[in-house]
C-alpha cells in the first residue's frame, strides 16, 4: 500500500509538472499577446486620439465600428484587399507549380536553381518596395526600358489609378512565387514514383497525370500554401506603403494601409483599434475555414 501511494504521488507530480513547464510560456503569451488584444478591444470602444489632446477620451460603445462600416474608404480597402489577395495567391500558385514541375525532373543543378528562385523571398519587404519604385519607374525603370527595347508602349506603373494595384500584384507575385514553389517542390518530391510509373503503364499522358495524380496528392500542400499566402497578402503593407502610400486616389489603399493611415497618420487610435479587431476577426474566420478544409482530408 505504501509503495503504491509513493508511486501514485510520483505519478501525480509528473502529471502536474507540465503545468509548471508551460506556465512561463503561457504567461508570456497572455502578457504580450492576449493583454494588448484585450486593451485594443477596450480602446476600440472609446473615442481616443493620441495626437489631438482636444479630442476627449470617452466611452462611445460601438460608434467606431459603425464609423468603419459606414465609411466608403473601408469598403474600398476591403474590396482592394480581396482582389489583391485572390489574384496574387492564384498567380503565385500557378507560377510556383510551373517552376516546381520544371525543376522536379532536373537532377543536376536543381539545388542551384532552387537557391536562385529563393532570392526574391529572402529580400526584406521594405527593400523590395524600394527596388520596386525604381524597377517600375516610368522614366528610369528597368521594366519600361525593356518595353522600349521591345517597342512596346510605355506604361505608368504605380503612378496610374488603373495600373497601380496591378503593379503591386506583380511585385508580390515576383517576391512570393518562390515560397509556393518551395512548398510544392517538397510535396512533389514526396509523391511515391510508383504512382507515376503505374499511370504511365496505363498509358496516361502529361495532363491526366497532373490532374489525376499530382494535384489530388498535393491537395493539402496547396491548402497550406493558400492558407499561409492568404494570411500574408491580407497583411501586406511594406511594399505598398513604400511605393504608393495607398494612392493614387486610394487605388492601392489596402486594409492594412487604411489601418495605418487611421492609427498612425491621423492618430485616431479608437477607430484604428476597431479596424484591427475587424481584420483579426476576418483572419480568424479565413484561417479556421482553410484549416477545416485541410482537416477534412484526415
Amino acid at each position, binding site marked *: 500500500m505504501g509503495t503504491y501511494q509513493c508511486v501514485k504521488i510520483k505519478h501525480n507530480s509528473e502529471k502536474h509538472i507540465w503545468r509548471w513547464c508551460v506556465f512561463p510560456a503561457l504567461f508570456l503569451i497572455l502578457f504580450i499577446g492576449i493583454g494588448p488584444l484585450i486593451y485594443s478591444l477596450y480602446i476600440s470602444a472609446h473615442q481616443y486620439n493620441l495626437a*489631438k489632446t*482636444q479630442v476627449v477620451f470617452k466611452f462611445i460603445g460601438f460608434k467606431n465600428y459603425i464609423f468603419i462600416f459606414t465609411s466608403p474608404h473601408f469598403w474600398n480597402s476591403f474590396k482592394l484587399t480581396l482582389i489583391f489577395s485572390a489574384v496574387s495567391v492564384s498567380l503565385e500558385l500557378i507560377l510556383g507549380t510551373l517552376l516546381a514541375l520544371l525543376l522536379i525532373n532536373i537532377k543536376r543543378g536543381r539545388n542551384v536553381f532552387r537557391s536562385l528562385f529563393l532570392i526574391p523571398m529572402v529580400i526584406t519587404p521594405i527593400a523590395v518596395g524600394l527596388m520596386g519604385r525604381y524597377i517600375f519607374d*516610368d*522614366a*528610369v525603370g528597368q521594366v519600361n526600358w525593356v518595353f522600349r527595347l521591345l517597342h512596346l508602349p510605355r506604361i505608368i506603373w504605380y*503612378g496610374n489609378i488603373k495600373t497601380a494595384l496591378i503593379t503591386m500584384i506583380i511585385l508580390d507575385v515576383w517576391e512570393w512565387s518562390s515560397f509556393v514553389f518551395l512548398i510544392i517542390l517538397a510535396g512533389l518530391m514526396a509523391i511515391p514514383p510508383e504512382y507515376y510509373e503505374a499511370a504511365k503503364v496505363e498509358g496516361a499522358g502529361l495532363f491526366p497525370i497532373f490532374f489525376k495524380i499530382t494535384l489530388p496528392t498535393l491537395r493539402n500542400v496547396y491548402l497550406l500554401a493558400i492558407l499561409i499566402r492568404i494570411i500574408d497578402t491580407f497583411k501586406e503593407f511594406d511594399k505598398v506603403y513604400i511605393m504608393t502610400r495607398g*494612392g*493614387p*486616389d486610394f487605388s492601392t489603399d489596402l486594409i492594412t494601409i487604411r489601418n495605418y493611415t487611421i492609427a498612425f497618420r491621423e492618430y485616431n487610435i479608437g477607430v484604428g483599434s476597431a479596424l484591427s479587431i475587424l481584420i483579426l476577426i476576418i483572419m480568424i474566420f479565413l484561417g479556421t475555414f482553410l484549416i477545416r478544409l485541410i482537416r477534412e482530408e484526415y
Partner: protein
Amino acid sequence: MRKGKLTLLILSFLCLTFTVTFLFAGGGKEKAKEEMKEEAVVEKELGPMPGEPMDKMATRIAKALAKGKKIELHVLLTWDPPGQALLKVIPIWEKATGIKVFTEPLSTIEMSQKVNLELASGEPDYDIIQYDRWIHKPVLENPNVLNLDPYIKKWDPKFETMLPGLEEWGIADDGTHRGFVFWPGMYIMAYRADMINDPKEKSAFQEKYGYVYDIDNLTWDKSYKDLAEFFTRDNDGDGKIDFWGSCEMFAPYAAGDTYMSRYLNYWARDHYVDYLSDPEAGKCLLNDATGKRVFKDLIDVVNAGSMVPEILQTDWGAILGSFSSGRSAMAFQYGATWYPIQTSASEFKISGPDKVGFAHIPGIKGKPRSTMNCGWISFITGNTDIPEIAYLFMLWRSSPKIDREMAMTSLHSPVREATYQDPEVIAVNPTFKAQFEYSENLFTTPAHLIYEEENLILSNHMAAVASGDETIDEALKKIESEINKKWEEVGK
C-alpha cells in the same frame, strides 16, 4: 558683596550677549552683502552682455549654469538634412560649454509617431525634440510642451531678424511661445536655364504667343500654362512626346503642397486667417470659386499634356529625379530639394548653373506673390530637468553665427535674413537668393488640427481629377463632404 557680584555677572552676561549679537548681526550683514554680490555676479554671468554675439552668450550662460554639475542634453532629431545640419555643429557647442549632447536621429516617418508617443506618455525621455512642422499643430497644443515665454524674456532670440512669420509658427492657441523654428523650407521653381534663358526659344515663344515671358514673374493662370505647353516637345523626333513643360507632385500628401502653392496666391493674400478650412466652425472652405479656380488651373496644365506623365507617383523625392533626368523644363519643390543640382554633379544629367536656374513660383497678376513655407521646428519637453540649458541650446543653434555655419557646411535652410543675403553663403547655395526674394510673403501650411487628413483627401481627389475619373465639381463636393466629416471626428 554678593549683590555686587551678581550685578557684575549679569552685566558681563549682557555684554557678552550684546557682543555676540552684534558680531553675528554684523557678520550676517557681511554675509548678506557677499550673497548679494554673488547674486549680482551670477546675474551678470547669466544675463546678456551688451554687444555680445548670441552664440557666445548662449554658450557662456549654459556653461555657467552647468558649472560643477554633470549635465547632458538629450535631443531627438531627424536624420534628414535638418538633423544632419545640427549634428555637424554640435561639437562646437560641446567644446564651448562642456555639455554633452546625445542625439537620436530618426527618419521623418518614425519621427511623427515617436513625437506623439513620447508626448502621450506624459514623460518624454528627451529634453529637446525637433519635428516636421507639418505635424506641428496638434503637437504644439500638447500640455507636455514647455512654455518658452519666461526664457524668451530672459534671453531674446531676436525674432525680428528671422524670416517673417517664423515666430508665429511656434505660438500656441493660448498665445504662448512653444516652438522654435530652425529649418524653414520655401517652395521654389527650378527651371532649365539652358532652354528658358535661350534667346532663340524666347523669340519663338513670342512669335507663337504674342508676348515675352519673364521667368521671374510667371502667372499660374496664363504665362506658366503657355510656357509649359511651349516646352512640351518631341526631342528625338520619333513622333512621341519625350520632354514636358513642367513637373509637379500629385502623389499622396505631396499633392497637397502642389495645391497650396497656387491656393495661397489666389486666396491667402486677401484672407489671411483661415484657409482650406475654418477651424472654429469645423467647416471645409475649399468648395468655392477660389477652390475651383485653383483646381482648374492645375488640371488645365495636366489636360494639355504639358506635365510629365508620371505626376501621380511624383512626391518630394521623385521630383528631383524627373527634373534632373531631363524630362521637364520646370519643376516645383522646397528649396532644399534642389540643393544637389545647383552645382554640376556627375550623377545628374541636368545640373549646374548653366543648365539649372531657380526662380519664384508663379503668382497671380496684380497680387503680391506668396509661397508656401514648411520646415522643422523644435520644442522643449515639459518634464526636462534643464529647461534653461535646453532653451540656450536652441537659441545657440538659431544664432546668426551658427545659422550661417550650418548653411555653409550642410543642407541647412537658414532662419536669419542675414544668412540669406550673405554673398559667401549664396555662392555656396544659389537657391537662397530665389528663396529670400519672396520671403516677405511667406505663408505656412494651415495651422489647424486636421491638415494632414485634409491633405490626403485633397491629394486623392487631385489624382482622380487628373486621371479623368472625376470632374472638378464632383471632386470639390466630395472633398467638402470628407473634410467636414473629419472635423466632426475631432468634435466640431
